[in-house]
């Protein structure tokens, strides 16, 4: 018996293969379409952060706004050439985005699943806002501050000197909210669930956005079953990518994972069942990913709940930024600059058409890139010693600051191109492998 067992082990175990990480999937396209979903924590501890998000939203919009308006002018050949130059050099201007908001609350306030209110269980607060809509930034600010955010009237500052014609203030006050939302209307916003489930909320939002929800949407514990008639009409478009922006000061308690489980593999597989890629940009609790030390936690946050958020961000090629930090002057806890986070978000969206994020730090010498089945070589970068200017030839370069592959010149993939990037990671596999 022993020799036969040894022989069987020998047969099955001997072939060894080097593993390459792959960025870009078969369905991925360099498309200019991006559906951006904001998942906002509407619990009582989020007053300062919600205010910062609303006050700095213009930064995000400015990164994506075309100087020529919502669409390029193409009446003449000169316009077309000019637009091509702008297209290759400032591709963010041509991004076709739409915005939706919901909250981290998955529990619903009604008695039955079909009593889900806007903002609960992934249902959008309002119909999606489209690029080019009149007053886009103001409309987003209204949805965020007046419908999604929770305000404890006793904690919102009072500024009797503020009048509605003064524009956006530096600090949100009762008077400002009265101007934006209507007198006292903001005081009725319900407080969100104490169990924040941003990842589950994102999944529910996508389930409500497609005509044929995948099987993962009908999990027994999910409120989607029984309320699937309530749809996020028009949010999920056929092309491009979905970018989920989570803003929360606590970790994730999504119900499909047991308490203590830090690997969101089940959710990553669920998001992978949708027909286009989903990226996560998270502004969440400050935790060192190596030491798991929390900085300025608002409450006792289990580290595994933050680990989940950091993992979905890195696994999907997005980013993770801390929502609070210690002030340099006196080590007190202060909110981080939302203007910086929103600028990063704008860059992420713009780079959807220029740069491809990698999940791990690569061994640069092992990077291989294919576009539509044709291999693309690395760019030749030359520096003029006299003028100091750098010229990057056709091809790709690796940007260590973004941990991304950036395309240049004629090698920039066209819309709907399939991009495959292979590399060996320097720091091993980011997750447990299924063998």
């Amino acid at each position, binding site marked *: 018996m022993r020799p036969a067992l040894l022989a069987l082990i020998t047969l099955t175990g001997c072939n060894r293969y*080097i593993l390459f990480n792959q960025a870009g999937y078969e369905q991925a396209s360099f498309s200019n379409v991006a559906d951006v979903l904001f998942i906002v924590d509407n619990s009582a501890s989020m007053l300062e952060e919600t205010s910062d998000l609303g006050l700095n939203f213009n930064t995000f919009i400015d990164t994506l706004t075309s100087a020529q308006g919502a669409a390029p002018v193409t009446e003449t050949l000169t316009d077309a050439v000019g637009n091509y130059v702008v297209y290759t050099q400032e591709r963010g201007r041509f991004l076709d985005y739409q915005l939706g908001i919901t909250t981290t609350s998955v529990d619903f306030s009604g008695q039955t699943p079909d009593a889900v209110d806007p903002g609960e269980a992934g249902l959008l607060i309002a119909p999606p806002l489209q690029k080019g809509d009149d007053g886009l930034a103001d409309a987003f600010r209204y949805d965020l501050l007046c419908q999604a955010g929770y305000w404890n009237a006793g904690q919102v500052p009072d500024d009797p000197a503020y009048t509605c014609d003064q524009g956006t203030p530096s600090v949100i006050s009762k008077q400002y909210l009265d101007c934006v939302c209507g007198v006292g209307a903001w005081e009725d916003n319900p407080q969100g669930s104490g169990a924040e489930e941003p990842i589950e909320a994102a999944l529910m939002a996508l389930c409500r956005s497609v005509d044929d929800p995948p099987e993962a949407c009908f999990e027994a514990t999910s409120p989607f079953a029984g309320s699937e008639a309530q749809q996020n009409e028009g949010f999920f478009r056929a092309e491009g990518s979905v970018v989920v922006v989570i803003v929360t000061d606590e970790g994730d308690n999504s119900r499909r994972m047991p308490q203590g489980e830090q690997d969101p593999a089940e959710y990553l597989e669920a998001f992978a069942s949708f027909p286009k890629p989903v990226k996560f940009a998270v502004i969440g609790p400050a935790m060192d990913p190596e030491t798991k030390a929390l900085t300025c936690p608002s409450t006792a946050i289990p580290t595994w709940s933050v680990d989940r958020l950091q993992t979905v961000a890195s696994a999907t090629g997005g980013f993770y930024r801390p929502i609070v930090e210690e002030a340099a002057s006196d080590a007190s806890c202060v909110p981080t600059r939302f203007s910086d986070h929103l600028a990063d978000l704008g860059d992420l969206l713009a780079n959807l058409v220029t740069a491809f994020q990698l999940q791990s730090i690569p061994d640069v010498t092992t990077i291989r890139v294919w576009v539509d089945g044709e291999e693309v070589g690395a760019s030749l970068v030359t520096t003029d010693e006299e003028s100091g200017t750098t010229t990057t030839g056709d091809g790709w370069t690796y940007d260590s600051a973004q941990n991304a592959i950036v395309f240049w010149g004629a090698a920039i993939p066209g819309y709907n191109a399939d991009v*495959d990037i292979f590399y060996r990671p320097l720091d091993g596999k980011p997750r447990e492998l299924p063998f």
Partner: protein
Amino acid sequence: MIRFLPALLLGALASAPASAQETVDIGLIKNKDVAVVQKLLYPKDGASELGVAVGWMPFDRFTTTPMASLRYARFLSEEWGVEVDVSGGWSLKNATYKELESPAYGIQPDAYRYLTGFAADLQWSPIYAKTNWRGQRVLHHDVYALGGIAATVEQAMMPDGDIAFSPGATVGVGMRFYLKSGDAIRVQLRDDLLIQRRAKTEDVQSAFFKQNVALTVGWSFMKRKG
């Protein structure tokens, strides 16, 4: 002895005579009713074999490969023969491969797809056996082992499509089940032990040890002298 003599005599009287059994008439026996068991009915000495086979290579960590082969063997004696084998196949991604390359993991193994293979081997078949099947049929079969040289042509499954020519050795075991026509059904397990060079990993490791284990079932046309 004298003490036991009466007992012995009594036993002799009571026993039935061994030679005086009644005969049983079994009727007329025709030649076709007689099956010769003791002879080697399907000799290989001086014979040649042309065979086709289909099979599978299921043991790789990331691929599973259907394949087919064409063989020609020449037997130098009842025990020894030489053979050449040409095979072709197409490796498919197995469930582990597909799970790794899914967005949940985003990993591609640098696995190589089997395309075609060649082998030349020496066969030693010391066993010629007969099996009584349910008391009604006698199956003649042999058992053999083989050893020789092999080479495969394989292609990287990643988009670079690197072609690798991989030489090595081959070992295996098998059985031929002989049919009344003299041909045989041949079942074989063969392991090709190869050295494979892979272009994308030349900086860390260029040559890898690879095993292609194939289980095949085929039909052998036997041509015997005389």
